[in-house]
């Protein structure tokens, strides 16, 4: 069972549709027990980071996410879901985030249209099963105005250029996070989820 974390925001239905398409069972849940009991969890995200943090804290999900990560359990965080893992964000003034990863979420540089909206390429910086079957520089769908700037360069698995070279895929152990939306990125997006779930479910059986 795959848990899709529901904290009252986010495009949970699109994520659930993608997981169903891949032939996996998922549950959209705001229950900490369900999330901790699942083989893998997905943290969706759209909208503003401060609102997301507020909802995560209010629903008790911040502690659940910290626990998943500290125990090395498989977690996939998307877009704002990725951003809230960092120390804090500049969005709407300074807001503290989960602080699981050292680094700051910054506003994209002006000069380009903001939000960064549309399909852009991901340069693969590491060889990793998450990229299995996906060519280097494949296009994924982005929509965001802020980006994560990790302090620890070793977590950066993929980068994308938009005024800056930003971390668009992040991997630390069983934690995977993407700035783009795999559930809206066509066949390669589905492939990223499939690769993540394969690793997560193999690990569960081992």
């Amino acid at each position, binding site marked *: 069972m795959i848990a899709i974390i529901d904290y009252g925001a986010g495009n949970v239905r699109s994520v659930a*549709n993608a997981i169903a398409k891949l032939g996996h069972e998922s549950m959209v849940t705001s229950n900490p027990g369900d999330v901790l009991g699942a083989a893998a969890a997905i943290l969706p995200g759209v909208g503003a980071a401060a609102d997301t943090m507020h909802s995560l804290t209010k629903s008790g999900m911040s502690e659940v996410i910290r626990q998943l990560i500290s125990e090395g359990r498989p977690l996939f965080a998307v877009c704002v879901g990725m951003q809230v893992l960092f120390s804090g964000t500049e969005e709407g003034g300074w807001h503290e985030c989960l602080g699981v990863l050292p680094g700051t979420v910054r506003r994209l540089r002006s000069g380009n249209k903001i939000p960064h909206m549309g399909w*852009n390429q991901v340069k693969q910086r590491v060889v990793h099963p998450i990229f299995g079957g996906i060519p280097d520089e494949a*296009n994924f769908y982005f929509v965001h105005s802020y980006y994560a700037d990790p302090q620890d360069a070793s977590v950066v698995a993929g980068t994308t250029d938009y005024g800056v070279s930003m971390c668009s895929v992040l991997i630390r152990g069983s934690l995977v996070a993407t700035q783009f939306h795999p559930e*809206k*990125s066509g066949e390669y997006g589905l492939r990223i989820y499939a690769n993540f779930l394969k690793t997560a479910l193999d690990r569960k059986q081992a």
Partner: protein
Amino acid sequence: MLTKRIIPCLDVTNGRVVKGISFTDLRDAGDPAELAAFYYREGADELVFLDIGATPEGRDTMVGVVERVSEQVFIPLTVGGGLRSAHDMRRMLEAGADKITINTAAVLNPELIGQGAKRFGSQCIVVAIDARRVRDGDLPRWQVLTHGGRRPTGIDAIQWARQAVDLGAGELLVTSWDADGHGTGYDLELTSAISEAVTVPVIASGGAGSLEHLHQALVAGKADAVLAASIFHYRTYSICQAKEYLSERGIPVRR
């Protein structure tokens, strides 16, 4: 590099896709879910669904269409037509839409833009502007039309574009009333004037009849994305052909 987007538009009424000329004289163009799946396979970058009947019954039908499409199509879906409140928006988002487009409701009640942006994020709120040329001196001007192009408002389109973005619109869908359905090309002056006036992405709409028109909208028209209906619905060109054409001319597209 961020690629330019090609967006087929599905105008839906009574559960069928239709297409007209200057917003009237409609022809049937097929089943929305089937067409959506077809465009997804062809490599469309996004899809826009507009309920052009904009009736309460049409809205219920559209919820069903969006639910069916989002189960098999994994690209962004924008839905609009007759959405008047944050509640209407939420219904479409819960059905599987990624963005909401509002037009008449935004002109009548501009605060709706901010309400939507605050509840669902700016990236969710696409303000659609139907603009018609005004003959007035040497400089081109356009006025905003509402109610599916039937009602002139006297509001200047460029000024409205700026205001909509200030209120929280994350993207603008700009349709030329004069060009729509004629297949003679986009209104390039309109698209570029709006694209230069705002910081958010602009989708050019209305008038695509050839691949050259798409190219013009992205270069001279300074659009970030092009929307077209007839040329794709009636298979004059495929999405793949459009992308190949643009790519050969140096426009970055997703292949």
